[in-house]
């Protein structure tokens, strides 16, 4: 199937949807949070914040997988790169993110073997080609990437590929939403739910938002028309006084998700408590390897010496990740903290809220 993506950027459709949004906007406004970094970028890129009706605010949540990775985890990845005879394979976003005193980019310049890959399966290839080295894949990301890592581990186990392992810092979205909607500092009226995470997990894990809290959620895609369609559907629900989880991204998401991917993820991983930057420890919001696959745990295998954690001074990334502050409200934003001299991860990662606000700042 080929898809004409131009349709999803069509200025006439965009204009019509913006009109619908204005027509449906509640008199007392609405705080709508997006919890996917790609949505953050898409909204910033198209400048949609500025065309929202008075009182309708689009808040950016903890949607950037790199940004929510706690400093201790970044430091652990850096410590792993310092282990002798070790090759680090990682998605590109991770390598610039500063830890307490270093970054993978700095370690690479100092001699560490750090390689950017696009898929965890590429890490297996690196492992096959370098049998005398230990190849570590940095497992960071939400349900979009976790099944891929699960598939890679399963294959490594089947092949008997013993020189590869993962650093597991995966996180899941729904349990974190539970914390976010209960944050007394941030009023969330509705949620734009992530497209690709939902491709995997479907609608069910979000039901509690509508059923327990009466908060509408719409799963949507990343083109301008997708995003606006999602917002319009949210406002329609608020207008009608109902709350349910709807899909505005039928070309990418089925209500049941992808059961095969979920089964694979659950075969390899089990949930555990996870530490989120800005949100702290959230029960059952992370993944760890099940005992049968624990031999693929890089930290267990390599026992890296992790330095004491230091948080960057004056950085508000944690508050920004909860939606309690916009990047522009941070006193470092655009002054002490720019993409060239980033203070916190939200300015570094391509999907970070601060990077998105900075890159697509308006005139």
């Amino acid at each position: 199937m080929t898809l004409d993506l131009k349709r999803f950027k069509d200025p006439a459709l965009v204009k019509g949807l913006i009109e619908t949004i204005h027509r449906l906007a509640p008199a007392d406004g609405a705080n709508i949070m997006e919890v996917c970094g790609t949505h953050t970028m898409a909204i910033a890129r198209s400048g949609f914040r500025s065309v929202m009706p008075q009182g309708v605010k689009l808040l950016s949540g903890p949607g950037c997988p790199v940004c929510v990775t706690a400093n201790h985890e970044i430091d652990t990845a850096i410590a792993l790169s310092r282990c002798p005879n070790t090759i680090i394979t990682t998605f590109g976003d991770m390598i610039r993110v500063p830890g307490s005193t270093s970054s993978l980019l700095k370690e690479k310049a100092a001699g560490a073997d750090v390689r950017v890959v696009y898929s965890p399966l590429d890490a297996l290839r690196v492992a096959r080609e370098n049998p005398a080295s230990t190849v570590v894949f940095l497992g960071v990301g939400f349900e979009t990437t976790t099944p891929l890592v699960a598939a890679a581990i399963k294959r490594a186990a089947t092949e008997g590929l013993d020189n590869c392992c993962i650093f597991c810092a995966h996180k899941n979205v729904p349990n974190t939403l539970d914390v976010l909607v209960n944050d007394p500092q941030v009023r969330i009226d509705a949620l734009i739910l992530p497209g690709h995470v939902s491709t995997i997990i479907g609608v069910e894990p979000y039901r509690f938002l509508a059923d327990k809290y009466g908060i509408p959620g719409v799963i949507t895609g990343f083109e301008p028309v997708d995003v606006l369609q999602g917002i319009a559907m949210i406002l329609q629900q608020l207008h009608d006084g109902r709350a349910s989880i709807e899909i505005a991204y039928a070309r990418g998401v089925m209500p049941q998700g992808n059961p095969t991917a979920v089964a694979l993820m659950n075969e390899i991983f089990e949930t555990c408590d996870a530490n989120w930057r800005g949100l702290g420890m959230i029960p059952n919001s992370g993944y760890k390897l099940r005992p049968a696959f624990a031999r693929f745990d890089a930290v267990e295998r390599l026992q890296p010496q992790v330095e004491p954690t230091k948080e960057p001074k004056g950085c508000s990334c944690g508050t920004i990740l909860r939606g309690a502050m916009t990047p522009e409200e941070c006193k470092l934003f655009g002054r002490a903290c720019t993409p060239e001299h980033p203070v916190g991860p939200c300015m570094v990662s391509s999907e970070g809220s601060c990077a998105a606000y900075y890159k697509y700042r308006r005139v």
Partner: protein
Amino acid sequence: MASAFEPNASTVLLAHGSGGTMMKRIIDEVFYSIYGGEILLKGDDAACLPAPAPGERLAFSTDSFVVTPHFFPGGDIGRLAVCGTVNDVATSGAKPLYLSCGFILEEGFPLSDLRRICESMAAAAKEAGVQIVTGDTKVVNRGHGDGVFINTSGVGVIPAGRELSGANCQPGDVVLVSGAIGDHGIAIISTREDLAFQTSIQSDAAPLNQLIANVCKAAPHVRCFRDPTRGGMASTCNEIAQQSGVDIHIQEDAVPVHEQVMGACDMLGYDVFQVANEGKMICVVPADEAQAALAAMQASPYGQEAAIVGEVREGTGKAFLRTAFGAVRVLDMLVGEQLPRIC
């Protein structure tokens, strides 16, 4: 493993850079036989070139090429090394004439690959109408290079009275691009060994001296050309704006981008305006010559997708992008390197 004295070595050996018989052999059998040309074959240490006529000026530029992989869809490091320098010289409005070519080879580099690169350089030079007139070869120990590094320098002659510069742009001028952006960068990234995704995108590496000559003829008051290589169109627009002390406004949906490139950028999280090109020109002309310049580009084999994409306004040296939805945002220069994102 062939010894250093092996006359029929199949890979580059340290002796190929030693100044002795092995070096003479590689010069004769590879460089001379493939490049040819009267000036090079004279074999002197310096190429002696005719001086320009009174009123004409020389344009001189140099560039080094370190790309991996060495062969990629639509080109190779050799074609890049010729086109890159030819295009840099041509941006001044010069007719590029002569190239130098310095090779830094890593011990163990396959001679068959070296021949292939040289043949590609010879073909690109022929296409551009330039001669490789002098060269140098060094060999470094295995592990101290990335197979092959190439430096080329180029000399061209600027006709009397032609003064192109990025500092010439004035409010009211029009910005053109000679074709779809982002092809080269995406073609390269798609072949990087640790980043296997498949596309049919080809590098756009091409000599653009003829296209530039055609535009100069059609638009005699053309202000400047600049090739948006590393840093892409975003860096080029910022550089020109700064040099001229003006603002450049680009209309996003006027800029040609191939669908596959857009798709790859969406997938990788890249900004297509920051992706490298090797066969594109940004050109600024007075408004009343814009249509003639566009027609001249479109009549050139490498300019069929050329478009008018923006305008120059009074300002302070910044570049802006107007989106299809009417929002205006800053078109920033690339910081560091573009890195593929997680999801």
